[in-house]
């Protein structure tokens, strides 16, 4: 029987509008893990990528070191379709929304940090969204305990790493991806605890917006 071992998320922080040239930007921290996201859009689109009925979402993911390869491409596709789901793409046909993600530091739960940074940057850019999205990474350790928002060490030692992204309206699973071997029961447990933790992140989103708005006024 698996049980929740670490129910706390690491401390998270966010800074919006940290870049001046982009339409929206945000840095998101989860513990030491930091990702910088910049959003450009809706902008002119290359003819080859143009959609007649919706905006094309383009995600560019830059790892901290090295040149992006297949793995990064797969991550890009994952984030791209996650963002496409929450954005009201049909409002801006024949345009593009470009999201650039730069990994600054990785101490675990990188993918969830990327998605959270994306969501913040999209909000900052003021692009129409259907709802918000937030992501939580979990790990199942060798004893079958569940760890929320794991560090790199915990990810390595565990037998499986599972990441979920939730929608703020229905709390349904928009995105899920896993590595390692786990039982279906463990999967459900992880899903539930991640879902529970997502509420905290959405709350944090609200707070950061409130703070920003109060600063403006």
């Amino acid at each position, binding site marked *: 029987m698996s049980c929740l071992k670490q129910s706390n998320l690491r401390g998270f922080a966010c800074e919006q509008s940290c870049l001046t040239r982009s339409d929206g930007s945000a840095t998101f921290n989860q513990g030491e893990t930091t990702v910088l996201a910049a959003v450009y859009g809706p902008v002119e689109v290359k003819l080859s990528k143009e959609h007649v009925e919706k905006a094309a979402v383009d995600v560019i993911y830059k790892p901290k070191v090295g040149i992006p390869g297949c793995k990064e491409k797969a991550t890009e596709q994952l984030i791209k*379709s996650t963002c496409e789901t929450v954005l009201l793409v049909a409002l801006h046909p024949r345009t593009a929304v470009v999201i650039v993600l730069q990994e600054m530091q990785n101490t675990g739960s990188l993918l969830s940090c990327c998605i959270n940074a994306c969501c913040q940057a999209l909000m900052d850019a003021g692009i129409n969204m259907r709802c918000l999205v937030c992501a939580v990474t979990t790990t199942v350790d060798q004893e079958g305990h569940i760890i929320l928002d794991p560090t790199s060490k915990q990810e390595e030692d565990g037998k499986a790493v*599972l990441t979920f992204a939730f929608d703020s309206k229905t709390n349904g699973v928009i995105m899920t991806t*896993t*590595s390692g071997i786990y039982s279906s029961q463990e999967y459900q447990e992880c899903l539930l605890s991640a879902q529970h933790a997502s509420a905290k992140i959405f709350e944090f989103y609200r707070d950061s917006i409130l703070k920003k708005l109060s600063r403006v006024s």
Partner: protein
Amino acid sequence: MADVFKKVEPAEYYRRHLTHDARPDGRQLLAFRDVVVSVGTIGTADGSALVRLGGGGTTVVCGVKAELASPRPDTPARGYVVPNVELPALCAATLRPGPPTALAQTLSQAMADLIENSGCVDAGALCVSPGRLVWALHVDAVCLAHNGNLADACAAAVVAALRDTTLPAITIDDETGRVRVDSGRERAPVAASAFPVAASFAKFDNDILFADPTAEEEALATATVTVATLEDGSLCLLHKAGGSAMTEKELQQCVDRAQVRGAELRHLVNKVAASKEC
């Protein structure tokens, strides 16, 4: 008449079918297409498999070529498994010759994840001499016809080809360090006992869930999810990239169906492999 309706209002056409637990090709919602698997068809490969879904609607052939290389310095006893999925312009009208598409790259990465996570390749079999010589398995899946659900077809082809793969025995002369292929000894298999099987599902209109989508269905679907199961019921891959949200119940339904599907396919592949032996 039906053809016109399908062309003009494809979504409505499908909705009418799906709400009655039936699909245009006659399947029930959670039914998979027929699978034909044949192994060892390519004589020039060290292992190969051909997978056809729905009478050749989707066809993937996978060949494994083994070569010898020196290992990475940080993992001296580990061999290489290099899976790549090729979507040539031959397989669909939308593709043109050129570098791999985003889909091909995602599939390649998915196959790499599947092999890595499930541990379906016996790590020990790939090491010839730690720190000096290891095997590099080039696992290349080529899609010959694309009518949806490439993930399942590729996964089946890759795993079946790996299970068919054998390597020649290698001897290294301790004194001279000369490497020699020992053709006298029997070739050794590379596959471990783990046998992952992938099953994909698609969601339509936020509430209808169906299995093994065709290319048309994929274009209309609002979300797809792929589940890979192992023999003991555990999962080694669960992938849903965006799309309409799913509840934990729906996900569980997919997992349960994938377990059944996994058992079926494992049975089939083992039967085909056994028939090849004798």
